[in-house]
């Protein structure tokens, strides 16, 4: 029981150590990640949108701040900082929507910080980060209005979604926008595979920060995730073999 109680903290400490270690080794041992077509095409899509005077829309999902469904939304906020920097001086800066009030406030803070870094404080508008609706399907119902009125050409869905994400992605496809979508819910990921041009399957939604070069710790944490995943896979295989051998014996 003590070992079970200590297992969690030990894994946590190991995770933190790996993140910090990879962050320090980052320069001498640069990370090489597998290509993610959606994230790689995102930069070009944003540039095209900026040049064409069209808008980028980022949705942080319908999850709340206080639950486990806030993790993909935080990943979306990390990507938002980069997207906002890229579109700060555009005619139509990025607009962020969320299905939760607290998440909308966090989006506003992230936008404000990005504009401060770009020395464009006067271009920040608080309505750039907004709450569309408090419930998931009403949020999805309000999306077509945003996509049509704001001339959105890049439609990013990075956050916690339910089944309504299929509708949200389909609305973007009907708008002929570049749709990049990722969530933590498995059922929703299956729906996104069918409806979105560039779905992010699995934990790829959490890799957005590393691929967009948000910071060195993002890349380090992704490397730490990969290493821990490998360890878990190895332990599962070993456990399976041992259990099978035990049953055989």
């Amino acid at each position, binding site marked *: 029981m003590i070992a079970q109680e200590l297992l969690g903290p030990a894994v946590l400490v190991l995770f933190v150590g790996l993140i910090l270690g990879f962050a320090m080794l980052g320069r001498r041992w640069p990370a090489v990640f597998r290509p993610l077509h959606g994230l790689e095409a995102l930069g070009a899509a944003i540039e095209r949108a900026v040049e064409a005077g069209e808008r980028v829309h980022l949705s942080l999902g319908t999850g709340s701040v*206080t639950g*486990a469904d806030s993790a993909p939304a935080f990943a979306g906020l990390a990507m938002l900082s980069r997207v906002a920097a890229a579109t700060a001086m555009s005619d139509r800066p990025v607009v962020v929507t969320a299905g939760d009030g607290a998440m909308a406030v966090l989006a506003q803070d992230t936008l404000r910080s990005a504009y401060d870094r770009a020395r464009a404080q006067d271009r920040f508008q608080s309505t750039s980060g907004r709450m569309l609706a408090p*419930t*998931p*399907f009403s949020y999805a119902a309000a999306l077509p209005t945003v996509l049509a009125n704001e001339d959105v050409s890049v439609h990013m869905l990075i956050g916690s979604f*339910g*089944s*309504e994400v299929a509708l949200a992605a389909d609305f973007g496809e009907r708008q002929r926008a570049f749709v990049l979508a990722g969530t*933590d819910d498995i*059922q929703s990921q299956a729906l996104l595979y069918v409806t979105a041009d560039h779905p992010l399957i699995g934990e790829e939604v959490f890799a957005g920060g590393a691929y967009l070069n948000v910071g060195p710790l993002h890349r380090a944490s992704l490397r730490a995730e990969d290493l821990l995943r490998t360890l878990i896979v190895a332990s599962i295989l070993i456990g399976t073999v041992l259990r099978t051998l035990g049953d055989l014996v």
Partner: protein
Amino acid sequence: MTMADVRCPMCSTINPADATACSVCGARLKPMIAGEAESLAGPPEPQEGEAGDWLARIRSEVERKAETSGEAPPRPGEPEWLNRLRPASGEEEGPPEGELPEWLSEEEGSAAGPSEAAPGEVPDWLARIRERQKTELEAAAEEAPPPSADDDWLGRLRREEFLPTEPEAPLGEEPEREAPPLGPRPPSRPLPPSSPPAPAAAPPPISATGPPPSGRIPPPSGEKPAVSQAPPFMGISKDLLEGAMPKWLEGAGPSSDEGLPHMPALVAEEGLAVTPESASDLQMGSIDIPNWLGDLRKDAGVAPPDAGAPGDSLARATLPAWLEAMRPMDTFRPVVEIQAEDAQEVESAGPLAGLRGVLLAEPVVAMPRQPSYSGARLEVTERQFALADLIHRMVEQEASEVGPKPPARRRLPFSRWAIAGALFLAVALPALLGAPSLSVPTLVPPGLPALITLVDSLPGDRPVLLVFDYEPAYAGELDAVAGPLLEDLMQRDIRLATVSTRPSGPPLAERLIRRIGDAHGYLNGQDYVHLGYLPGGPAAVQLFARDPRESLAGGFLLAQEPTRRGMWSTPVLAGVQQFSDFGAVVIIAAGTEIARTWVEQAGPWTGASPLVMVASAGIEPLIRPYYEALNPQVDAVLSGLPAAVAYEQANGRAGDARLLWDSFGTGMLVAEMALILGGMYGAASFLLRSGTGTSES
């Protein structure tokens, strides 16, 4: 500027008519030989006013002097200065006829180097001339002003307004070279008689670097030295520079009285035209230079006869280093080599017509000219060609790029309409018409018997907690799936309590329980109670499971005043003090996360009470491991409409699940057909395109 004003030939400053030197640069304004200037201008034109008067005076003087000196009046076509040349006396007689001086014969072969002759080879006539000049120098040296603290040339600069201080090095030559002879004499002109200078009184050699530091060149007698040196290209004799009037210039006119050396005006006086013929007389080489000046150069290197110079009381001046650095000699060395006067073009248009040495207006400025290069074909270098090719390829690539998608035509979504219409018909027809009717499932889901057994074993005196954690959108499915379970519980008269972590949960619970409970006589406040909305999301689940009474402040649709005490004191919740006091916990959820949250956060607090999961068909794969684990955290699972229909059949009572079964079945068939047709279409188009590509290749 009036007709009487004079323009300085050096700096173009306008000066009064009577000025002899320029007020700015000090250059002589009137030519040294007034008659010569007049002859250059050609036949004088009748002048009016003062300009004509002074010229007439000069002419009259010349004629008078010619008469007095016995000189012949100037013949037309001949320059006057030639006539004024004194007939050579016996001593000044030049070389005998037929004999050319050595320097003249060596003129073509030698460069700018001095023509040195052996001391023993000096002709007699030359010796006589040198001797005479030497005498003149000695006389001039006696009248020389005391030397100043600075170098003599500097002192003369201070006395005179402007004197050229050009070193004697000829134009275009190296400064360290010795100055060449001061211009070749034209062969047609006899050499002026000159006496070789006395060796003792020879003035210091005129070096190219500047005036001899030790002394000054004694000026000719009677003349104040104006300049110590002048550019040798000017061909100005030393005595001229020092103010001595050359013999051939004697009696020239008023300008000779002033004794200031000057050079002939390059610009004719106003009103006087300079004809090419007369302009040629201004050639520097035509000015007579005494030979003694050339001999002085030959004697360069000899110790300056400062001590021996008769009448030269000036100490050898030494220039300080800073002053030595200030010598403007180099600056006077023009960068551009000025062509000889004969080679210079004559301006033929404009206000400077007739002048030499001026920038030609028409061919250079006014008139367009052909480019100097052969412009028929553009000369392209290899690098330029490579760059042009690169730009050409870039332009081609730009054109070949896939441009932005143009605004697509608004096509009618036939496929969307077709599929939507098919689905609508498939769902509506069985509900409206009752046909087609599909057979109910005969296979019992694996987990259904366990659920039925579990419900049968529930104690009747403890309420069951129902968690309604799904959105209104899922009400169509989950109401039908949860309905048989609620029917079973109501058949056993088990009290019910509902809670939700969503604001829309309590209304959904009221709707479902009201619809099913009406048949069983269930009343709010007596048979069931709504604990209400549990705020805080998943974080509140653990708090509720830990202490339900403290977590919920109020209820929903309570029959009495909503106070915390009142709600928990209702008969429905009698005996419930903690989470484990509930008879069972039934979680009705459509999302994976909330289902797992309740299982993981509230499961440890259920104690011995079973936990039942009523889930949407989509999340069943993720919930089943909790049910099938070695230590299951979920005691029973009811998922999907087929399981609900089977449960209704087991209850023996048809409910919403059976009503929806036919529509559900036909809708599934339409979806299956759509997928099959899509696969067939994709395969056919793939085969057709591959076949077309093969045939084309």
